[in-house]
């Protein structure tokens, strides 16, 4: 199903539309290479293994969260809560560890709380018919608030080494976090492209009413995507806490913007029905490169925010021009 989505029905006039389409499909990879080459040539540190590892580590958090966001966005929804949920599940995992719960249990606490938070959004979106944008915005604030409440605003630290390995350790030459991310991408890629559930996600995003009348369990599908998004944010919280050996209520502020940008850069449409995990992977790597390049080039942190915003704007602009062309 996914492969058909990227193929245009027919090319029409050679205007902005076809230009945009070409940009969308080819230039993700070209852009990725161009930024890499530019950074390799202009900075001495870009091609060092330490730097590449740090890109992969930073990308793994965005990546895991962006995978969940991909499911949500393909249904035509959005989950703004993920950054706050990462922080909240991180501190809850930390509290569980400090209460001497076994490491696997603490990890499940983090992922489980993330899933619950996604379940809350799912309930509001399906049963209460609320807009996912507003609901997840509310959860963004609530989860962040809870993270401060349960920690009293303090950082939680000194976790067992076996836990810290998840975020910061290595398995052979590879960071454990990057390996977990890889597994998440592989599984999600298969689920979205090759399973009944994946096909239902596309159908619900493509035309919810048609999907409902065709007998697809629309509410179940919508619920699952928000639960997946929440659970993966929980996993992200666990990994971040492990990497930093601490959990802060202020962590991952604005992470949702990076994740959404990665998904949209990867070719998903905010109108639903279109997108892929492979695209999101490329989007995550591009976001990782841009963030890394801004640091290496010593760009002021204030500009970093601005540029990230501009990248999102550009990606959404392309999406919406594509949509217009599709309707024409």
């Amino acid at each position, binding site marked *: *199903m996914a492969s*058909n*989505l990227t*193929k245009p*029905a*027919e*090319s*029409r*006039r050679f205007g902005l539309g076809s230009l945009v389409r070409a940009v969308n499909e080819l230039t993700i990879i070209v852009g990725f290479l161009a930024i890499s080459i530019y950074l390799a040539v202009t900075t001495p540190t870009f091609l060092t293994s330490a730097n590449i590892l740090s890109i992969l580590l930073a990308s793994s958090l965005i990546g895991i969260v962006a995978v969940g966001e991909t499911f949500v966005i393909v249904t035509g929804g959005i989950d703004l809560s993920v950054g706050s949920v990462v922080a909240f599940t991180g501190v809850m995992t930390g509290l569980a560890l400090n209460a001497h719960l076994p490491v696997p249990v603490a990890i499940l606490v983090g992922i489980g709380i993330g899933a619950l938070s996604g379940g809350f959004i799912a309930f509001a979106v399906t049963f209460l018919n609320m807009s996912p944008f507003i609901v997840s915005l509310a959860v963004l604030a609530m989860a962040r608030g809870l993270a401060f409440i349960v920690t009293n605003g303090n950082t939680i630290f000194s976790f067992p080494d076996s836990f810290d390995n998840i975020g910061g350790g290595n398995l052979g030459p590879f960071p454990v976090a990057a390996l977990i991310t890889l597994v998440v991408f592989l599984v999600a890629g298969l689920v979205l492209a*090759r*399973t*009944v*559930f*994946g*096909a*239902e996600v*596309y*159908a619900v995003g*493509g*035309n919810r*009413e*048609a*999907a*409902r*009348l*065709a*007998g*697809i*369990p629309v509410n179940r599908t919508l619920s699952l995507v928000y639960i997946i998004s929440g659970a993966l944010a929980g996993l992200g919280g666990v990994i971040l806490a492990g990497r930093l050996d601490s959990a802060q209520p202020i962590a991952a502020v604005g992470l949702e913007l990076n994740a959404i940008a990665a998904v949209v850069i990867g070719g998903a449409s905010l109108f639903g*029905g*279109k997108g892929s995990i492979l695209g999101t992977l490329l989007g995550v790597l591009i976001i990782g490169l841009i963030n890394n390049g801004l640091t290496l080039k010593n760009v002021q942190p204030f500009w970093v925010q601005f540029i990230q915003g501009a990248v999102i704007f550009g990606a959404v602009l392309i999406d919406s021009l594509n949509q217009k062309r*599709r309707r*024409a």
Partner: protein
Amino acid sequence: MAHLLEMTGVSKAFPGVKALTDVSIFLDKGEVLGIVGENGAGKSTLMKIVAGVYTPDDGELRLEGEAFAPRQPRDSLDAGIIVIHQELSLVPDRSVAENIFLGNLPHDRLGRVRRKALNQHAKTLLARVGLDVAPQTRVRQLGIAQQQLVEIARALSRQARVIVMDEPTATLTTAEQTILFATIRALRSAGVGLVFISHHLEEVFEICDRVVVLRDGAAVEMRPTSEWNETGLIQAMVNRPIDALFPPRHAAIGDVVLAVEGLTSAGHFEDVSLELRAGEVLGLAGLIGAGRTEVLKAIYGALPISGGRVRVQSRDVVIRAPRDAIAAGVALVPEDRKAEGLVLPFSIRSNVAMSTLPRLSWLRTVLAPGRMDRLAEHAVADLRIRASGIGQTVQSLSGGNQQKVVIGRALTTKPRIFLLDEPTRGIDVGAKVEVYRLINALAEQGAAILVVSSDMIELLGLCDRILIMRTGRIAGAVPRAEFSQERIMHFAALG
């Protein structure tokens, strides 16, 4: 004297398709030009060129003798060429008056909308199209037919020189159509040139002065209406003789398979009871807004019910969602195939497979692409869907072929009861006949069919029995032996 609008040698190709080849037609002031042809014959492309949506590859347009080359829809609008599309383009949550003057609202020097003038002007235009609603009414509250009249009022507000109507009567009731035709005649007398695209040939004969037949992208014949007859027109369109529009019926009528008792959906319809037998084609007639579509949706579980019950094959079934209906052997072909039937940017394959995904998978979980392909190939072959392959997106198919995809998907669930809502709306004569044959074939295999249609000829030709709905209730029933259009309209309009 120069023609009002003249096209000479117009050609347009899309990758892989020659949409129009060397088309030359003209339109004069104060006449109604009918354009007929099967779907895919090039009518839409032709109209989009006139509307400035497409630029022709070859050929030229002249407007009152002067070269006219619209590069965008704005150019055509400014030249007084108004196209009223099948898909309406109204803003549902604004008032009728605001919609009529959208983009052209009367305002004072500070930019404040002059409400009084707005509503006053709107009222005049609404009277001209015969729509009796207050200008302040929200468009959302209107039926599709009424919305169409608002669109026509909007065209009138723009000093139209040429008005193109694409299937304007597809959703209109007879009474509304009479009003529309009166409007068209008034515009013609006022010197406007009108282009009337329709699949309803009776209407073409009634309203048009000249008729052009498009076939495979070429204008094959253009003659005054008086020189055409219905058979000749259909033959020119499909290039083969059509013995009869409706195939003879041979289905044996069996036991009751669907019994609806006192079904009520608050705000939509009340106390609807009906029995449908195996092999039977039961029509549901009535005006737009009578509640026919809602009855089908309620049976199908797509609209909540507040009372009554549904029995399928003498068993009580609880249908809360379309999924339950499908499991009980009920299929729905919805009224609006683009909004409710299809995922337009997806392939034929994805659309056909949508209702049976678990069956097309290993362990009901992992999709089996081979099974999906076979299912879609079968649908394309069985229903003779004209497409480059099962990977073609349904948005690029003609209306008739899109409808076949919807029907093809309905068939994949192996239903015994079919609920068909306007199954031939907006599709060409050839495809219509195919749908009619299919309905007959299904009935002969013992399926039970409940069909809603606003095309009275269609209901009379297809059905064994017709129920008539009026304002949310069943107003009467007419068996085949007593079929007549007058009888049914009497029930529908007057009771």
